[in-house]
């Protein structure tokens, strides 16, 4: 018998076109289902429907039927489904409730009425399962994004759910971290429904793949069949990292960082002598594991942070795109947001360049996470900098949009030096002339041409 059944589900958020349109599927116990699709195709809505959050939490027009663990989600509230179902959302900071890791993981167990004597053992077992046992006594405010995501997974696994829902849960993890995260989720034995924008690892682990487009399922097939379909119809989703050297003509040095050292607030050193040279005309990918100091080095290069040792030389204007696109939502329309740093005609052109010409009058907070990322990109592109630094610009962006972004950066490469901090090896391969990898030891930099 199926663990979850979705029958002819059509759902529209208030005042919007259908986010899901006559979607039907069944999920078997222990099955691993990967949900793919462009931004705004309904992946997150489908995950929320399986958790009962659609329609209970979001409201809107709901037709059809969703049954999970034998309960109709129109009758059972999401809190009543909790335990049988557990969800990990995209942004860990928006789902952490308590201040200390142990209490945070115990939160769900307490809510579903777990006997007190088994709460702590299950908390520690779940933390152990995600490789985060050492974080048990820590405060959540002291953790990195990657550590927070592991705590969120532990909170979900502690419930021992039959259905584990993961909505782009690895967006802040490096490739090794993302792989370990998904492997741990799959090893739990629960049926897993995972939505991903970096599908390589998830494709390897999935039993079955759904592809959504404009709210409809256009593919529902076993993994191998799905890969063949993707290769033929949506090749960006199965693209391998490119090994082709892109080197174009490079010009003068725009920024040179030599032996930079940095520590935050008297803490341990994040950078212990890092060096980097960026020339006009080249796109450089800065890679490395979580916590290796990539963002810190990039901020030093752009002048947002002052190095505490070493030297930094920079000519011309620098612009920096932060990881969180929510930081770029300070005006009432997308056009006003971009025009904050430039003339309106240039702002309109920058919006068009990132594929958001249609959103000129839209409120920035009404845009999806991928669209917000592109809006944020427009706000820095419009300043026409000599050095453009992009920190994880593909977070929440689907592979087809990533390919467009890579094309845009390549097309404009001659105008400036571009530094892209990224975990996305496929994107790095598509966009960069060379890759600078910051090692875990935080000092040595290996340059890969």
């Amino acid at each position, binding site marked *: 018998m199926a663990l979850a059944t979705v029958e002819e589900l059509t759902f529209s958020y208030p005042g919007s076109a259908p986010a899901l349109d006559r979607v039907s599927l069944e999920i078997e116990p222990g099955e691993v289902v990967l949900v793919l699709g462009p931004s705004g195709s309904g992946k997150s809505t489908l995950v929320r429907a399986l958790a009962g959050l659609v329609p209970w939490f979001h409201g809107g027009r709901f037709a059809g039927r969703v049954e999970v663990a034998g309960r109709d989600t129109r009758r059972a509230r999401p*809190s009543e489904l909790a335990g049988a179902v557990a969800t990990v959302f995209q942004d860990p900071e928006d789902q952490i409730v308590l201040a200390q890791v142990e209490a945070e993981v115990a939160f769900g167990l307490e809510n579903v009425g777990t006997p007190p004597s088994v709460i702590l053992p299950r908390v520690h077992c779940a933390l152990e399962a995600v490789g985060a046992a050492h974080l048990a006594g820590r405060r959540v405010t002291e953790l990195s994004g990657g550590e927070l995501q592991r705590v969120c997974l532990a909170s979900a696994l502690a419930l021992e759910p039959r259905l584990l829902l993961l909505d782009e849960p690895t967006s802040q993890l490096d490739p090794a971290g993302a792989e370990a995260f998904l492997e741990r989720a799959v090893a739990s034995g629960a049926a897993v429904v995972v939505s991903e924008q970096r599908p390589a690892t998830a494709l390897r682990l999935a039993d079955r793949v759904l592809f959504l487009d404009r709210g409809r399922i256009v593919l529902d097939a076993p993994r191998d069949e799905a890969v063949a379909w993707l290769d033929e119809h949506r090749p960006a989703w199965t693209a391998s990292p490119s090994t082709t050297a892109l080197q174009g003509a490079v010009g003068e040095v725009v920024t040179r960082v030599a032996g930079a050292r940095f520590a935050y607030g008297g803490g341990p050193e994040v950078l212990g002598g890092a060096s980097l040279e960026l020339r006009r005309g080249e796109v450089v990918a800065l890679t490395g594991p979580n916590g290796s100091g990539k963002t810190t080095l990039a901020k030093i290069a752009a002048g947002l942070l002052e190095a505490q040792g070493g030297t930094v030389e920079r000519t011309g204007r620098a612009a920096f795109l932060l990881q969180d696109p929510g930081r770029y939502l300070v005006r009432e329309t997308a056009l006003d947001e971009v025009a904050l740093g430039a003339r309106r005609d240039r702002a309109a052109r920058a919006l068009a360049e990132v594929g958001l010409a249609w959103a000129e009058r839209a409120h920035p907070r009404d845009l999806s996470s991928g669209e917000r990322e592109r809006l944020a990109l427009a706000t*820095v592109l419009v300043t026409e900098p000599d050095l453009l630094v992009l920190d994880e610009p593909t977070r929440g962006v689907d592979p087809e949009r990533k390919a467009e972004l890579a094309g845009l950066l390549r097309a404009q490469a001659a105008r400036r030096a571009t530094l892209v901090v990224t975990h996305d090896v496929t994107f790095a391969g598509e966009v960069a002339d060379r890759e600078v990898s910051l090692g875990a030891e935080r000092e040595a930099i290996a340059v890969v041409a």
Partner: protein
Amino acid sequence: MRPTAAAALLAGLAVAALLAQQLWSVGALALALLCVCLRAGRRARPYLWGTLFSAGFVFLLSPLLQSTGWHVLWSGPDVPVLGQLDVTTEELRIAALNALRLAAVGLAFAAYALLLDHDRLIAASTGRRSVLAAALATRLVPTLERDASGLVEALRGRGLAPAGLKGHAALLSPLLAGSLERGINLAEAMEARGFGRAGRTRLPSPPWRAVDYAAVAGAAVAIVVGALWL
């Protein structure tokens, strides 16, 4: 020390400061609470500035709005509605007392927000929902501070560092919108994790120790002494 006992002690000291009448005693309580807050290091800064600003405001403004005392130190102009502005020794003493009381209460809250384990406070509470709401509200201050720094950093990354009071005031609206959005996301995650379901249990808490009993007794003593002798 258990957070419940520590919260009781902080509340007791704040109430004692409100009840006490002597400048030196309220000053001593405020100083003691300041020393406690300083244990939080740099995180204490926004709370200390907030407390200093509000207490200073009370000290500077209240003498001008009162008409108490005979020992006039300064006579000012006659202002419509307010009457003649003057400052007396007695008014200064009352202003200093009220400013120190406000500082003591502010510092007690700062110590509560900065140093207590709110998770254990929630676990120990019988009114879990309201205590959880209070704990989340307490976390709002550092979250807002982090969001504000992020907004400023994003603007700097665009070569648009906000200048002056007007520039920073323009960030209030997006800051509020961001907080509301975060609140909605958090509420959704809490619902998905079973919050509000009947029959909840709680993580077993460790037994009370002598220091916890002493802290609660200390709170009661502080209130009584503050009301009767200070």
